[in-house]
């Protein structure tokens, strides 16, 4: 990321100085320490002053942890389950049975790839209808067998393509949204990266919705919005400001329940620490939801979404 360059330059300077001082009698530790303090200040300054567009870019950082990275770091056991039982196994949507701190849960989320080959295999985290139907199958399985559901959202959108339309992308998403209101187990949703539109909402109904500090969630991507309203995708930074898609924005709008702080500079700077924080938040939230009787849980879930929207009465 462009805005991270001053940090990277300073980091290089420090490491060069370390290398240089090794095995020599020159004493540089004082200078190194002062540069490290400067680095810390620079990081805080840069990351606390990010624009909305820069935050969107951080959510897409090439090293940012993805769904399976988190599962690996927070679950002691994970049995991935595949397929929608109708058409195919969509690799942009993953899910399965997992144990987190001794608790059995169902985890479902979109999966992006890291290198080119994986990116193609995961279709850049853009699921087809069979992905949403796989998610639905796993949700319903969890509901029948009393397993709380953990959803990790990270998608630039549901895939817009010929096959996706032929197989009913709209119907798949609509039905998922509706079915999620009938699931008789607690649902904790965490937006870990990108939360683009119906593609995110299609697995995104939760009793609690948490957002990582550098994730975004909106009705359309800044690029998509810019292309339509500004007729120029290059106006994405303006669109990002206008859409107010960041975690702070959504908390202020009352759409999400909590922001999960990330290590300084973002989850990719310390994935282990990031996963530890996510795990604690999931466990705390589950502890809060588990004691609720099913009827109350479902009533509150409906009431939560019933309230959403802003209008005035003439």
């Amino acid at each position: 990321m462009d805005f991270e360059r001053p940090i990277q330059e300073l980091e290089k300077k420090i490491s060069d100085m370390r290398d240089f001082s090794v095995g020599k009698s020159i004493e540089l530790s004082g200078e190194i320490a002062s540069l490290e303090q400067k680095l810390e200040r620079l990081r805080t300054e840069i990351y606390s002053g990010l624009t909305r567009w820069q935050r969107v870019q951080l959510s897409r950082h090439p090293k940012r942890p993805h769904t399976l990275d988190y599962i690996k770091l927070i679950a002691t056991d994970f049995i991935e389950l595949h397929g929608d039982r109708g058409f195919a196994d969509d690799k942009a949507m993953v899910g399965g049975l997992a144990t987190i701190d001794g608790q059995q849960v169902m985890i479902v989320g979109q999966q992006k790839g890291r290198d080119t080959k994986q990116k193609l295999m995961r279709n850049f985290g853009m699921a087809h209808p069979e992905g949403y139907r796989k998610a639905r199958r796993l949700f319903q399985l969890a509901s029948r067998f009393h397993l709380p559901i953990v959803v990790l959202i990270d998608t630039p959108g549901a895939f817009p393509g010929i096959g996706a339309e032929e197989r009913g992308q709209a119907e798949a998403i609509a039905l998922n949204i509706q079915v999620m209101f009938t699931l008789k187990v607690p649902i904790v949703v965490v937006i870990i990266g990108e939360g683009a539109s119906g593609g995110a909402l299609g697995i995104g109904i939760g009793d609690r919705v948490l957002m990582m500090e550098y994730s975004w969630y909106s009705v359309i991507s800044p690029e998509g919005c810019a292309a339509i309203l500004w007729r120029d995708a290059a106006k994405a930074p303006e669109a990002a400001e206008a859409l107010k898609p960041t975690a702070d924005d959504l908390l202020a709008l009352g759409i999400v329940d909590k922001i999960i702080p990330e290590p300084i500079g973002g989850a990719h700077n310390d994935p282990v620490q990031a996963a530890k924080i996510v795990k604690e938040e999931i466990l705390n939230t589950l502890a809060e939801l588990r004691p609720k009787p099913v009827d109350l849980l479902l009533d509150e879930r409906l009431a939560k979404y019933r309230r959403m929207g802003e209008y005035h009465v003439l």
Partner: protein
Amino acid sequence: MEWFRKAKQGLAAQEKRNIPEGLWTKCDSCGEIIYTKKIETLLWVCPNCNYHFRISSRKYVALLLDGGRLDEKDNELLSGDPLKFRDSKKYLDRLEQARQKADSYEGVIAGIGEMGGIPISFAIMDFSFIGGSMGSVVGEKIARAIERAINGPMPLVIVSCSGGARMQEGILSLMQMAKTSALLAELAKKNQPYISILTNPTTAGVMASYASLGDVIIAEPKALLGFAGPRVIQQTIGQDLPEGFQSSEFFLEKGFLDKIVDRKDLRDTTIKLLAYLGGKPA
């Protein structure tokens, strides 16, 4: 007809795909020139190719409901501007302009009417109001229409016509998909039918929520239906789209539509469906 085409060219840009005024009307689909008085008697359907022109939501009220009567509800709900949104124009100005020229106060007209003597909760989206886009008010009015059906209890009929969620309300418009779908799950428990009628176009956020959740889903012929817009798909996959892609006929073929119904039969077909699915005359 060269003289006609030339004369019309200047006007075409303004008139777009809405109902053209004037003595003669050109079919958007086949190009046939039709006497306007005649096409009016045909409910704005091309006699040559059966293309269904987009008509106003008020015309549907007249066409579908007994006596053309709708006891309108919730017209006092008006959009706010939760994001203080501004692109080339302020959202508040866009709303004001829409209110002045559209058929409705806010993207959808809803209320209680009767079809074949059966009381129903009815809602029809208004494309003339910012493309029928769904913001907080559209979502709330649809939600209340569903609640009227739940509380009646009575059947629900929604006529959709929308390009999707309203970008200017950001995440709040996305959440209207959740709100409406959640209430439809409640309606399903009441065993009251929901007939979803799709008209040209019904796409994106509306298609990916209540429009796709009807117990029976019917559409007018040759409507554009789908999740993503054709242009977005074309840009994503970098190839031309097949003929008839995302039309009503395509949706029927792929199994996501119960039936395609000509506009002239829309009322009778809906009444029959309601009668089969337990709708009781008052």
